[in-house]
């Protein structure tokens, strides 16, 4: 079906162009309008990384706030598709809840009705192209500016200009077309008309990928008397059904939460359309009653269609909002959260690399996922159990008692649980930072990538020392066993401290506390070297054992420092001023050297 769609569309267009010059103008008007929408989206994307994300993050509080955000942002951006994409992206990254996402999507459906008002109330009443020309001229000057925000403003202005120009050409086209063809010949009445024109509206929206464009086309055709008011209403209902295709397409690359939101969107639009079709007479009566009340002329069908579009969407929201909790339960049942697979990236989806704020959050969560896997593998690589380490008051005694070698193919587990995640993180970081994103976000993403690399290095170091650490600790071998146990204990203490940081309340947590670990690790390293020399002199270990141990202790201290570095980056304050304070107060290597030597 898909392979035939493009030739069919092209054939219909070419035939239309050949038959009528006015059809060319209408088609060009639609094309210019859609191009304007793309420019608006590009323009608003340049503003992401700031205000847009901060606003969206604050809409998680209540359904009213989410609805308000959906209405406001869609009114402002004139694109419910962009608002849907942003919402799916934020939901996939875990920045907002499903309930907030649903609220935003409901609000976007009301916000999109402002487009109909804009066209019916303004676009058809004035010579809209006279506004478009200066807007386009000013826009092009701004588009060539270096400042990202000025360029964004330029694209938004150009987008608006093209929207106006598109409306103008559609309006002109339909007015001239009226003189040659009378499309009202194809008007249908009754239930058949309702069904046929609803399907036509849905198909037009699927083809144009925009219910907004369908609505503008319908309103301009209605104003030119080329379609009947009754059929225009069915087309508007059809546009709402057709737009669900955009939501489904947008969710294909999203995670389970994004797919739940897309399904919510589909359910909302289908329920709203069904209610409108069933109660069409009552809604039309309400439209007439309201239009009379606010002074809309009886024959002004374009404005009446805008009233219908608004009532129809507000009614949908009024029906669905009280059912939100039930809807969420249904969505959670219909699209269950997949069983967590620790070897697969959980947060780095294509949906989460759409906006700087979601990129950073998704990256941070995935790096933590990798760190958790690395900590587990390091503990198991040393034949230790994390739950025992986290519960004990005496790490050394617990480590000494953990002699039983664990059944573990460390190379295979490393490939499956660490390397795959690390590859996904590197790929995501490269893709994300190759885009035009704020420098501070790019720096954060690079720092997080380096933290992931440090975790990987730590695991590799443990891989190197696992065989000797197992051989020398499973049964007591005297001094060399004590040496290996002390190394295992030092690593275990770092794992315990990382766990404490994880568990501590954010208002008490500081990456600066990792300087304490750096200092004690350095102190332990010095003490270990002294002990090895003494044991070798006393003959309690032989030269072979000493060299093996010194090699392994090199790996162990490398692993400890890498673990500390990975945790430091992860827990470093992200808020500007606080981050600066932590950066200034963090101890340098020479401070660590001096403090570890003292006393």
């Amino acid at each position, binding site marked *: 079906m898909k392979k035939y769609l493009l030739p069919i569309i092209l054939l219909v267009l070419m035939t239309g162009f050949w038959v009528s010059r006015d059809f060319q103008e209408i088609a060009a008007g639609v094309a210019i309008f859609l191009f304007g929408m793309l420019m608006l989206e590009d323009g608003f994307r340049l503003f992401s990384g700031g205000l847009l994300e901060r606003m969206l993050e604050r809409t998680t509080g209540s359904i009213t706030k989410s609805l308000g955000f959906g209405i406001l942002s869609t009114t402002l951006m004139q694109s419910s598709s962009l608002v849907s994409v942003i919402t799916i992206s934020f939901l996939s990254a875990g920045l907002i809840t499903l309930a907030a996402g649903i609220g935003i999507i409901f609000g976007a459906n009301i916000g999109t009705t402002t487009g109909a008002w804009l066209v019916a109330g303004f676009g058809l009443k004035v010579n809209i192209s006279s506004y478009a020309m200066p807007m386009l001229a000013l826009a092009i000057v701004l588009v060539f500016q270096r400042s990202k925000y000025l360029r964004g403003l330029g694209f938004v202005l150009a987008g608006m200009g093209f929207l106006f120009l598109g409306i103008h050409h559609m309006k002109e086209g339909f007015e001239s077309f009226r003189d040659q063809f009378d499309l009202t010949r194809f008007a249908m009445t009754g239930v058949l008309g309702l069904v046929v024109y609803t399907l036509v509206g849905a198909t037009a929206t699927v083809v144009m990928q925009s219910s907004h464009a369908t609505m503008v086309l319908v309103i301009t055709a209605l104003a030119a008397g080329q379609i009947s008011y009754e059929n225009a209403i069915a087309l508007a209902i059809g546009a709402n059904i057709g737009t669900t295709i955009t939501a489904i397409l947008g969710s294909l690359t999203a995670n389970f939460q994004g797919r739940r939101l897309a399904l919510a969107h589909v359910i909302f639009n289908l329920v709203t359309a069904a209610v409108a079709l069933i109660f069409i007479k009552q809604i039309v009566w309400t439209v007439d009653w309201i239009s009379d009340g606010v002074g809309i002329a009886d024959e002004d069908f374009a404005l009446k269609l805008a009233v219908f579009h608004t009532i129809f969407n507000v009614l949908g929201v009024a029906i669905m909002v009280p059912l939100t909790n039930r809807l969420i339960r249904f969505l959670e049942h219909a699209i269950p959260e997949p069983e967590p697979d620790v070897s697969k990236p959980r947060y780095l989806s294509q949906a989460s690399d759409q906006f700087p704020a979601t990129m950073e959050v998704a990256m941070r969560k995935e790096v933590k996922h990798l760190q958790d896997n690395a900590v587990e593998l390091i503990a198991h690589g040393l034949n230790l159990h994390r739950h025992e380490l986290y519960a004990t008051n*005496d790490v*050394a005694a617990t480590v000494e008692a953990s002699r039983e070698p664990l059944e573990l193919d460390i190379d295979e587990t490393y490939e499956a649980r660490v390397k795959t995640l690390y590859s996904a993180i590197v790929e995501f970081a490269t893709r994300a930072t190759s885009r035009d994103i704020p420098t501070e976000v790019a720096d954060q993403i690079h720092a997080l990538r380096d933290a992931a690399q440090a975790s990987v290095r730590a695991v590799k170091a443990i891989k190197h020392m696992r065989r000797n650490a197992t051989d020398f600790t499973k049964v007591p071998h005297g001094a060399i066993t004590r040496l290996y146990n002390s190394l295992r204990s030092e690593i275990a203490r770092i794992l315990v401290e990382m766990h404490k940081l994880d568990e501590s309340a954010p*208002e*008490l*947590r*500081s990456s*600066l*506390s990792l*300087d*304490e670990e750096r*200092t*004690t690790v350095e*102190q332990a390293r010095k003490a270990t070297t002294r002990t090895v020399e003494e044991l070798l002199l006393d003959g309690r270990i032989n030269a072979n054992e000493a060299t093996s141990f010194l090699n392994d202790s090199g790996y162990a201290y490398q692993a400890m420092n890498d673990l500390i570095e990975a945790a430091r980056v992860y827990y470093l304050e992200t*808020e*500007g*001023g*606080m*981050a*600066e*304070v*932590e*950066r*200034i*107060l963090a*101890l*340098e290597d*020479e*401070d660590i050297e*001096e*403090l*570890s030597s*003292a*006393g």
Partner: protein
Amino acid sequence: MGIKKFVEKINDYQQRLEQKKAKKIKKSHVEKVIRKLEAKRDALKSDLKSAEKPSKKDRLETKLKVVDEQIERATWLLEQIG
């Protein structure tokens, strides 16, 4: 101790601030960090009181020295900001 590096970091921060490449440090930022460090110092002191093994006491004393040093520097930074 590495006071020279510490002062260098403050100078570097001020340069970046002038070039608008750094966020301004407010008094409240430093005070918040000091509160976190003091809470950590209290926790370490409490652990030290209950520690029995000499090796554990040594480690806790080293950690205390580190946090004392950080509090001293943070207090000095607070005076400079104020």
